[in-house]
């Protein structure tokens, strides 16, 4: 009963976030957030279903549940290149969340379900700002549901695979430079879609204390067919801007993760680990809007984005002080996949340094209350979105406390 309550609680909260290179979100387990978002080689709980399905079978207990929510607060600043006024906005608090449940029918087999929000983008520059003809606000959310099986051979090698179903929705507003007595024209696009992908991983524990993991999460093409496109334009132009359907495709990029971790000390109190995450961003080369009803003014538009593949190095450590308390710390460097001449206010992507810490309290055996805190420092960056001749300097800072529960028994 209680498990179901937890599930409902977390599903009920909306998730939409924007940080990290591009629109990928890394907040999938409070324990892992606490140690620099590493996780590919860890097998502490059901979050392995997501981080590396090959590791899920190594979780010792028959049942493992883990769920949590982050409270993501970001501030972005934009200084136009030649204009005095600076634009700042604070994102409304976003709440990316996760829930994992794993069950072991036999000693070497684990089955489970992972639900989380690995991609998203939510920002609002406001109705009147210098980039209003590029974007006013955008909310993009993707939930993924991943049923997973994992099997281990002895205690050395585990393999696992999950089928991912991703459900996403998009809602964006921008101004159109055609003015009537009440101001600019506007375009709103709203739609949702779902598609499949997979997550496969291998976990190896060659010697005591050492874990090695490799995980591949496939690209998912989020094709929104027939999203609602609503134009508001002066009456005299309404024939050229009929309310419309539009097809939009946003790819969720593939990730290849490699992780290594080592436990040592008395009762393996200490753990250090690292993670290398290669993101195949180059799949996102343009954002295409293909309108169903074409007119002289409304057509297929392709906005080049030309993202580049990036490697994110991460490092983290854990110290289990006693049966009650565990402490974590970590950090990572997340380079922006966006080129200088394609830097745009839809995803104002800057290189980021993330610093994390975390704490688990275990009041009773098997139950752990996990808290983590992530501070992301965005490195100031200047660029131009050349197709729109929109130039300036971006900076951001993100502050993310989070809380979760893990229950293994």
């Amino acid at each position, binding site marked *: 009963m209680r498990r179901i309550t937890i599930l409902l609680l977390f599903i009920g909260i909306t998730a939409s976030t924007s940080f990290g290179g591009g629109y990928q979100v890394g907040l999938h387990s409070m324990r892992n957030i606490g140690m620099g978002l590493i996780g590919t080689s860890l097998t502490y709980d059901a979050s392995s279903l997501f981080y590396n399905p090959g590791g899920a079978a190594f979780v010792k207990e028959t049942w493992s549940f883990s769920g949590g929510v982050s409270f993501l607060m970001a501030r972005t600043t934009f*200084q136009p290149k*030649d204009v005095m006024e600076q634009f700042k906005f604070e994102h409304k608090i976003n709440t990316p969340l996760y829930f994992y449940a794993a069950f072991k029918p036999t000693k070497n087999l684990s089955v489970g379900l992972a639900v989380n929000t690995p991609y998203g983008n939510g920002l609002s520059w406001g109705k009147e*700002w210098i980039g209003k*003809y590029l974007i006013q606000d955008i909310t993009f959310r993707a939930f993924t549901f991943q049923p997973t099986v994992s099997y281990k051979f002895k205690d050395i090698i585990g393999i696992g695979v999950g089928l991912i179903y991703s459900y996403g929705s998009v809602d964006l507003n921008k101004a159109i*430079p055609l003015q009537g007595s009440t101001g600019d024209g506007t375009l709103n696009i709203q739609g949702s879609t779902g598609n499949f992908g997979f997550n496969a991983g291998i976990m190896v524990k060659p010697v005591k204390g050492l874990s090695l993991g490799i995980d591949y999460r496939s690209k998912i093409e989020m094709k929104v067919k027939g999203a609602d496109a609503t134009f508001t334009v002066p009456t005299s132009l309404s024939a050229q801007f009929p309310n419309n359907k539009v097809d939009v495709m946003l790819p969720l990029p593939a990730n290849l993760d490699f992780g290594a971790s080592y436990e040592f000390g008395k009762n393996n109190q200490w753990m250090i680990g690292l993670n290398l995450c290669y993101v195949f961003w180059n799949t996102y080369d343009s954002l295409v809007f293909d309108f169903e009803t074409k007119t002289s003014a409304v057509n297929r538009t392709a906005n080049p984005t030309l993202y580049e593949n990036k490697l994110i190095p991460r490092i983290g450590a854990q110290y289990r002080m006693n049966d009650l308390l565990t402490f974590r710390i970590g950090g990572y460097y997340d380079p922006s996949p966006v080129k200088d001449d394609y830097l745009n206010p839809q995803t104002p992507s800057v290189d980021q340094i993330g610093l994390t810490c975390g704490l688990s309290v275990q009041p009773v055996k098997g139950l752990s209350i996990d808290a983590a805190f992530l501070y992301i420092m965005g490195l100031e960056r200047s660029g131009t979105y050349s197709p729109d001749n929109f130039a300036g300097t971006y*900076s951001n800072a993100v*502050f993310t406390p989070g809380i979760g529960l893990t229950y293994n028994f």
Partner: protein
Amino acid sequence: MKKLLFIILSVAFLAGCDKKIDEYPASSNGVDFSNYVAVGNSLTSGHSDNALYLSGQQNSYPNILASQFQTVGGGAFRQPLIGTENGVGFTPIPGGLYYYTKLALKIVPDKDCQGNPTGTASLKPAVVVDNPDQNTLKQQLFSPPTVAGPYNNMGVTGATVQSIFYNRLGDPTPDGHPFNPYYVRFASSVNASILQDAITQQPTFFSMWIGNFDILQSAVAGTDQLLTPADTFAKYYPLAVGALATSAKKPKGVLANVPDITSIPYFTTISASLPYNSVILDSAQAAGLNILYTMYGHPDIHWQVGQNPFVYVKGDGSWAQMKPGDLLLLTIPTDSIKCKGMGVADPTAVPLPKPYPIAGKYILDTEEQQVIQARIAAYNAVIANVAGTFNLALVDMNGYLKLFKTGMVFDGVKFTTNFITGGLFSTDGVHLNPRGNALTANYFIQAINAKYGCSIPQADITKFKGVIFP
């Protein structure tokens, strides 16, 4: 407990972790912008949509420039504001002037050649008030501005390089001397000249963009006969700039040159959709027209089966067929072409159809264009030369507007020199709209920054309006 921690951390973030970007490093680099005076014609006065009106003036490029100068020590900028948003313009008619209001885009029902509604409608510029009360508009034009002078914006609609020197240009006494109603309304005295009113203010910085009307007063009338002579321009332009540059405060300043007519939609719009050879004839029609034109003494004009050029009246009064490159002006009554046989023959004439050439005022043929373009080049050579002599910033508006022929994008907005849809010009096809003025001000700023090593921020063009659609 967790909630408390959350609140504490949130407060810590909002207070302490705010990342700041350096602000725009505005700097005058020692240039004194405290008293900026602008000299020019209608482009400088804020004339727009074929009239002088309040918000047009408020969006003049000198006013936009002045507000940007205020970030680097610029002072107040007074303009001779008119107390009407509907605006006033005028045209000479026998016995005086006819006054009209500004233009705005309107949805106008289409009519067929019999005058019956076709059920469709077109988007066209039209006066905002039909048949306005003449006395009201006259009074609005000649009333003093709503704010007291002296006026930093000395732009006067219709000002030429020579007329800015005229004493009594602001004296409306009808004794045969030249006067300009747009200057009458704010001249400091009946004996004042535009240039003297500018210099008396002891500007610390000035701009002068003049020469446009010296060209346009002729070009918009479809002729090359009313252009200010090149030697007149070469005489008065250096005198005007010299008078400003050597005035009391020895001001620095900026000059702008004259754009080509082919960058202006008034001259390019109609011909873009109505080719010079749009007359389609069958053999009977061609034969009939050949007889008709011979009867009227123009056997040299030959009509053939298929496409034929329109016939028009040349500058010397002779008739000719249009050639590729000849430009039909925005004012041409296209209804007359469609319904009355303009450019071919009037089929409704009695007892017989009559040749109906297009009046010369509606066409700039290639010969006229060549004369005009040579004159613009002569003016611009003088302007560049004088900018060098007095060590002033030079804005190449001629080159800049040419870039817009193929389109320029700023902050996600594409601008072209197309009429209405281009987003740059107002509904009169000659003057810029507010957003076009903001782009102009920004280009002036680039030239000033480059010349004087200052860092004046540019205007946010997205804050300005373009053409307003109904």
